[in-house]
């Protein structure tokens, strides 16, 4: 009933169909976690694409702040659940707190001369401290917390696939619409302004979508490593590319390869998926340094 009201019918049909197809694949790892695999296919390439801006315009620290705000977001959600509010989902409090921190940091950055890293450092610390305070005060919360800290592929269920699908599509459309303007703003914001670009709109919209992407990817990689999913594939692509189109596609490709490869690795080695994904991406980054060094030498 609710589902029909929200209009998720066709989407759920599509997502369950995709999960069935993945489950039917002749690989143990695909059969074991088709939901996580689908979420990875939806999110990892997009993380690479968005990472182009995170890397080129030094926003890694910003996405770090968002992922660390997850500490208090998840903690607050878990505390509410343990207090008897069973309908609360920590993933929603996670998103809410991410949005608050993301918008706050963007606003302060735009209004003051304080260095962005200082502002973020303050927001970041406050969020982590609040999270740790909440977690340590509550034993029940302590038990559930590591799932979010390290990520857990089994957290990926139909509702989170819906969110992943919507976020993936929304970000792809957003990049189609705003890629050139974001490139120009990143090059020189004043120049972009004199070209009639409303820089504030792009600042805030990018921040909101980055928050959505980071919080959606947390069940997959964990809050400690989610920034790496944005930064590492794009950083490797940067070493391998000479134009922004090349960097964009290479980053998407490396995101996809390390996402799927990492899941396989995690299944084979029985480790956390997030850790395996990021280790694989980091290995690709290390390899990407070779052609770069050769070009310079």
């Amino acid at each position, binding site marked *: 009933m609710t589902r029909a009201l929200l209009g998720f019918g066709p989407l759920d049909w599509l997502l369950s169909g995709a999960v069935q197809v993945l489950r039917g694949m002749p690989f143990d790892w695909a059969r074991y976690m088709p939901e996580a695999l689908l979420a990875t296919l939806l999110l990892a390439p997009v993380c690479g694409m968005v990472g182009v801006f995170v890397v080129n315009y*030094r926003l890694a620290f910003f996405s770090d702040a968002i992922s660390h705000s997850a500490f208090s977001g998840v903690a607050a959600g878990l505390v509410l659940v343990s207090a008897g509010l069973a309908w609360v989902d920590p993933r929603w409090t996670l998103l809410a707190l991410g949005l608050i921190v993301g918008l706050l940091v963007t606003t302060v950055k735009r209004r003051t001369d304080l260095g962005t890293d200082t502002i973020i450092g303050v927001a970041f610390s406050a969020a982590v401290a609040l999270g740790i305070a909440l977690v340590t005060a509550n034993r029940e919360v302590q038990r559930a917390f590591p799932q979010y800290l390290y990520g857990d592929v089994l957290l990926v269920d139909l509702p989170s696939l819906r969110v992943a699908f919507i976020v993936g599509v929304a970000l792809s459309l957003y990049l189609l619409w705003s890629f050139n*303007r974001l*490139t120009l703003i990143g090059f020189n914001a004043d120049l972009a302004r*004199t*070209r009639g670009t409303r820089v504030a709109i792009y600042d805030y919209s990018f921040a909101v979508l980055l928050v959505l992407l980071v919080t959606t990817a947390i069940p997959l990689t964990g809050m400690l490593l989610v920034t790496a999913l944005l930064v590492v594939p794009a950083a490797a692509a*940067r070493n391998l590319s000479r*134009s922004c189109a090349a960097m964009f*596609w290479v980053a998407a490709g490396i995101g996809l390869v390390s996402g799927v490869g990492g899941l396989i690795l995690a299944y084979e080695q029985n480790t956390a998926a997030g850790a395996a994904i990021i280790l694989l991406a980091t290995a690709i980054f290390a390899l990407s340094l070779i052609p770069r060094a050769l070009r310079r030498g």
Partner: protein
Amino acid sequence: MSGAASAMPARPIAIRTRDLSVALGGVDVLVGASAGFVRGGINALIGQNGAGKTTLLRAILGLVPYRGVVEIAPVGGRAARLAFVPQRVDFDRGTPLSVTDLLCADRQRRPLFLGHSPRVLRAAREALEWVGALRLLGAPLGGLSGGEFQRVLLALALLSEPDILLLDEPVAGIDIKGEALFCDLLVRLRDQRGLTIVLVSHDMSIVMQHTDHVVCIARQSVDCQGDTLTTLTAANIQRIFGFPAAIYDHDHAHGGPHAACDHHHHPGHHHPHMPPPPSSAGPRSGGAA
């Protein structure tokens, strides 16, 4: 005030500011600045560092909030198009962005990751050809010299087919030869395309040699303005820059009316070069060498 009332007949004004004031973070950086910039001329905004010249440029461009009025004369019945060439771009040189990428990012709707639009690419090629940098098409931005970078920024500005070009310290950080080439380019844009050019500079040799009109900013407001040669008297320069007449030799540099500006100098004043012009034969032949 000396120099403010030029003997020249009034020239059409492209941009006029009236009583323009800007406060940034509670500090007055520009107070009651009224300035005019002549149409179809090269206008220089000069003054000491921190005097407010860049702020005036930014106010005209709408990049800072201001009180007062900025009037921009329409061109052929429509609003004049302004294009800005920023001073120093804090651009991370490791970013894989090519000259083509930058030029197309500004003009095409198609996202860059789906390729360059042929129409915009043609325009980009034309603009680069204009600034003598066609060979830079496709080059990575990170590998450009200061002079090349500045010409690419100029090409980017030209792509929007502006009527008025506003440049913030365009030759800062460029070697002398690149500087001469860049100034020649501005002269050609004025003469062949009829552009109005406004540039911020504290390089007096460039101002003397290449500009038609100056607006001098001192102590957060307009001190004097008018025809370059009649306005930049030794007394005015000393007042604006606050040090005793360090005068630049424009007699050799200009084929223009020496007498008209000579008699403004202090009697018996020597004409030391500071900094020296590109070559004693004059900057234009020096640049073409």
